[in-house]
């Protein structure tokens, strides 16, 4: 299941290079063809929606209140990940150096 989800989204970034090579589309690995990528995105979207919808049928008990509310894990997982990416990006401005930084040592 997880792999299915990974793959659709994964292929998104390949969309552009794949399209750029459109004359060779037939030669591309089936996984990186634009049509497959589109299908995988659709499949992934449907699965995410289904995961939230199923929660209506499954009783999820929270421990602290907020975590028991509907679709908590979905939005929480999404929100904290975006926050962490942005935090990393921000810290990167201060911490990042050329990867040859220590080479002269």
């Amino acid at each position, binding site marked *: *299941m*997880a*792999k299915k*989800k*990974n793959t659709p*989204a*994964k*292929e*998104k*970034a*390949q969309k552009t*290079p794949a399209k750029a090579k459109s004359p060779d589309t037939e030669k591309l*690995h089936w*996984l*990186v063809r634009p049509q497959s990528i589109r299908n995988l995105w659709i499949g*992934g979207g449907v*699965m*995410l929606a289904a*995961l*939230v919808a*199923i*929660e209506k049928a*499954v*009783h*999820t*008990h929270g*421990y*602290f209140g907020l*975590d028991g509310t509907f*679709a*908590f*894990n*979905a*939005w*929480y*997982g*999404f*929100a*904290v*990940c*975006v926050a*962490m*990416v*942005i*935090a*990393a*990006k921000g*810290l*990167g401005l*201060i*911490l*990042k*150096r*050329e*990867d040859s*930084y*220590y080479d002269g*040592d």
Partner: protein
Amino acid sequence: MTVIETFPPGLVLVLGALVVPFLRGTAQKTWILVLPLIVLVLVWRVPDGTVLTVSFLDYTLTPVTGDALSRLFAIIFSIMAFAGGLFAINHCREIEITAAYIYAGSAIGVAFAGDLITLFLFWELMALGSTTVLLTGGGQKAMPAAMRYLLMHIMGGSLLLVGIVTHIDTTGSIAFVAMKPDSFATWMMMLGFLVNAAAAPLSAWLPDAYPEASPGGMVFLSAFTTKTAVYVLIRGFPGSEILIFFGLFMVFYGIIYALLENDMRRILAYSIVNQVGFMVTGIGIGTEMALNGAAAHAFTHIIYKALLLMSAGSVLLMTGKRKCSDLGGLFQSMPLTTVCGIIGALSISSFPLTSGFISKSMISQAAADESLMIVWYLLAAASAGVFLHAGIKFPWFVFFQKDSGLRPPDPPLNMRLAMILFAALCIGVGVFPGPLYSILPFPVDYVPYTAAHVLTMLQLLLFSGLAFFICLPLMKRTLTISLDVDWLYRRLTSATIRKLIAIFGPIDQAIRASALAGLNQAIGRVYRFLGPEGVMARTIPAGAMVYWAVTLLVVYLVLNLI
């Protein structure tokens, strides 16, 4: 009991490793594969209680003391040595495998050490073994990295030694039992353990050194040092609240740095710190559920992290490239490595039906049971973050992403077999958690597979995945590294010393020059006085002496008469 039954299993691996360089060809390969299996059987057979006692000075050492916790760690260390040996057998030098087995054997020695002296001896042997693995297998950059690694571990070892000596001096006991960080001695011991656990702020040694090892070398390195630290913390400091803070910091430190990193094996190195953070948090919570969770997570972590590093090591070996910006699209020609890498990535992310799901969730459950609300929310956020930095980032940038044009085949058979073995274990333990639960230190009252748990975990992880792909433009790989605490000792100290030399050098020279001039002057004076032409060297006629003697006698006479 027979000698074989009482002999320390760790030492069997250490001594057996020393035989490896003397063997050749098939005999050598067979021995490399059979030795860890013999040790595994010996470990399995260690009963509860003290098996061996040895007199040393005024103390009675207990080098083999068994219980469920010791056996759990020793078992996974033996399995790891086998799989690591299988993976390394054709691309690592024999001296490297020898060092790796000495390293693994001393880790098993630590797991069975019933007293602090034995513990310390194996602890230091581990540092030497791991440094040798780095030195013998790594490239050009490995030498200075290994030296920094060794210095850090000598410092950690010194802290531990100070703690142990003070502890023995004040309590008179050498037994290694549960303690509290409430005295100088116990604090020093805990800090010594935490250095090896790569706890902040001294975690930079791990991503600095490990990725410089050979492909097989890093697989070994990922397993033993940090996990023996987890073991000694579980046994020595369960329920020490400060560990929760250390652990949570490590968890987020690992995620943020891994997100910034471009080198695939450094991503996984940061992810070791992240995962050990979960375990340290569990040890800090300290309930039976939490300690079981920490121990189980160490067990499963060794397997999936080794699997991830085998996958990354295979890519490195077959392409010679280690930067995400140079890789991509490898799934087309390395299908097995890709699948095994993805299984490792799903396991580290705690996906249902993989080993991480049945171990990490016990730590979160313990936080919930103890009503540690903030800890629970942070652990949930961190679980999502693991999927982000290791679960998707690693396989995506290495195997998919863009077509790098590289078409290397899967690695040789032995490496494929090692990956298949560990991938099977990741799924096997995830689907059938019973056997692992039955060897945990405390009875397990936990059911991982409930509809609610599976659903909430899937929601958390898959929406994290969505966030990854939406944020992908923000995560464009750059040819950079990120500064860490090691900057202090790699740059700041050397730069400071250079600056001080620039400032004080001329002053120092002036002082020396004037001191030298003064000294020369003094020598000149003394020379004039004592030298061959000096006053003292003049020959004085005997008449002068008689003159002065008579003068003295006259003065004496006059004084007498007065």
